[in-house]
């Protein structure tokens, strides 16, 4: 697909300041956004794509998107190539627009190296400079206790139980027993999970993923190259992405960004959750899986506890075989980032190359979905739907 003639530059703004001791860096981003919107004659809620790079304080595009109040994003990109990033972002924005991924893309750059002498590292000072840092970092938030707060609230609103969450780990362990590389290969029971030490209420040690070294890689090619290769073809047929944040004090812990990225991916692919034969679902914690399954539409909101119980996620037993490599809960979680392994196991399933004991029969349609960041504050959700050709 060519981007020729598919996108236009319609707003531009150069901040007049050259020395800004009276403004924060996030504030400068907001003022640049205001200027460009005014130039284009658009308003904040028209923006559905956001592009930023290493100068944007905080966690990738997530902190700034949350700070700026960008609620309609369906495309984001924080590709970092130093000073050229924003030229590159124009190209990316055009591609995204040509592909229908967004229609109004915002690119921001701001910083104050003159005022903050020696301050501001390559990521604008890192997490400590994120606009939310002062209001969150004193409270000892970790992945464990932030995800755990989602579980506490989910249990309160929907009656979800620790036993139901435990079934997710049980299913993963049933798969991991066949994976010779899995970090944990022992099959565990619901009792094993709920009797394991409490980490952050209501999550036990066996509700948490493993910590491992490792890595992964993927090759994505054009149809022409794919045709020349002697491998089963796995076609990408749908993708969705969305950020979720704390929304200026309107945080809701009962759902994830999958509620937006999932439907977009399904709509693009032209398939329904019930068509999916295999699902790779990010499993940093058991609650992560449960909420994403609901938000992706595999069951009604609030019914995730019932859905995952009684082996429903075990290959050959239940309706939705998931994480047949053992997932992050048993197999691995390289560098504390489990997204790539989710795609890898989905590709194995679609090629028919999963372990024979967990291979899904006639597996021609699969989903890989992940949550990056914190379910309890701000995160980026990404969904990909793949088909065997």
């Amino acid at each position, binding site marked *: 697909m060519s981007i020729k003639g598919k996108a236009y530059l319609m707003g531009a703004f150069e901040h007049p300041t050259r020395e800004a*001791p*009276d*403004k*924060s*860096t*996030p*504030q400068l981003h*907001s003022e640049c956004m*205001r200027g460009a919107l005014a130039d284009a004659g658009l*308003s*904040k809620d028209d923006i559905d794509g956001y592009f930023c790079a290493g100068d944007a304080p905080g966690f990738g595009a997530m902190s700034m998107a949350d*700070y*700026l*109040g960008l609620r309609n994003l369906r495309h984001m990109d924080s590709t970092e190539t130093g000073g050229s990033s924003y030229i590159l972002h124009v190209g990316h924005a055009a591609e995204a627009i040509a592909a229908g991924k967004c229609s109004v893309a915002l690119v921001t750059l701001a910083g104050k190296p003159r005022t903050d002498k020696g301050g501001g590292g390559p990521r604008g000072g890192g997490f*400590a*400079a994120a*606009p*939310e*840092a*002062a*209001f*969150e*970092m*004193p*409270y*000892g*938030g*970790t992945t*464990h*206790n*932030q995800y*755990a*707060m*989602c*579980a*506490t*609230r989910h249990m*309160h609103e929907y009656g979800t139980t620790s036993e139901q969450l435990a079934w997710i780990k049980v299913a993963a362990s049933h798969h991991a027993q066949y994976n010779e590389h899995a970090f944990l290969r022992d099959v565990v029971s619901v009792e094993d999970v709920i009797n394991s*030490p*409490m*980490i*952050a*209420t*209501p*999550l036990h040690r066996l509700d948490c993923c493993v910590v491992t070294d490792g890595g992964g890689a993927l090759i994505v090619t054009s149809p022409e190259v794919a045709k020349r290769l002697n491998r089963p073809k796995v076609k990408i047929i749908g993708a969705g992405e969305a950020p979720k944040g*704390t*929304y*200026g*004090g*309107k*945080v809701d*812990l009962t759902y994830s960004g999958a509620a937006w990225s999932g439907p977009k991916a399904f709509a693009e692919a032209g398939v329904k959750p019930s068509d999916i034969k295999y699902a790779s679902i990010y499993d940093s914690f058991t609650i992560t899986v449960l909420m994403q399954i609901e938000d992706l539409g595999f069951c009604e909101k609030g019914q995730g506890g019932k859905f995952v119980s009684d082996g429903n996620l075990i290959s050959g037993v239940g309706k939705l075989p998931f994480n047949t490599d053992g997932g992050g809960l048993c197999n691995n979680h390289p560098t504390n980032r489990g997204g790539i392994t989710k795609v890898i196991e989905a590709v194995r399933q679609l090629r028919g190359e999963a372990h024979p004991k967990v291979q899904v029969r006639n597996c021609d349609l699969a989903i890989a979905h992940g949550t990056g960041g914190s379910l309890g*504050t701000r995160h980026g959700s990404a969904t990909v739907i793949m088909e065997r050709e």
Partner: protein
Amino acid sequence: MSEQGTKPAPAARKIFPPAINVETERFWKAAEAGKLLYGYCLACKEPHYYPRSFCPFCFSESVEWREASGNATVYSYSIMYRSPTGPYTIAYVTLAEGPRIMTNLVDCDFKKIAIDAKAKLVWKPSEGGAPVPFFTLA
């Protein structure tokens, strides 16, 4: 130094000093005076937290920073046991004025913490920085 054969008590959890910038320094000045501020938009009439120089809902710059009453209810929480300095409770509480904010529930019996429990503002010193707003059961 502890006596031989006795375990030293865990050191108190370090309260990270808030990173203050020119946009938020008046929040932390008010904190020194025991006042918890939240943002209120004069254009769309919505309150927000953390306060900032504009409204995150309608993007208006007509925002006031108002003092919260300090009354709140527990929205969710987790008691963190994986801590070298002893268990502590992270929580979101909903301020009487509307915004839902991250905090810790301190100086209270863990067994009495529940969703919808009433909570009230208390201040604690940070490590060499401004005081930080916490909540305790009311």
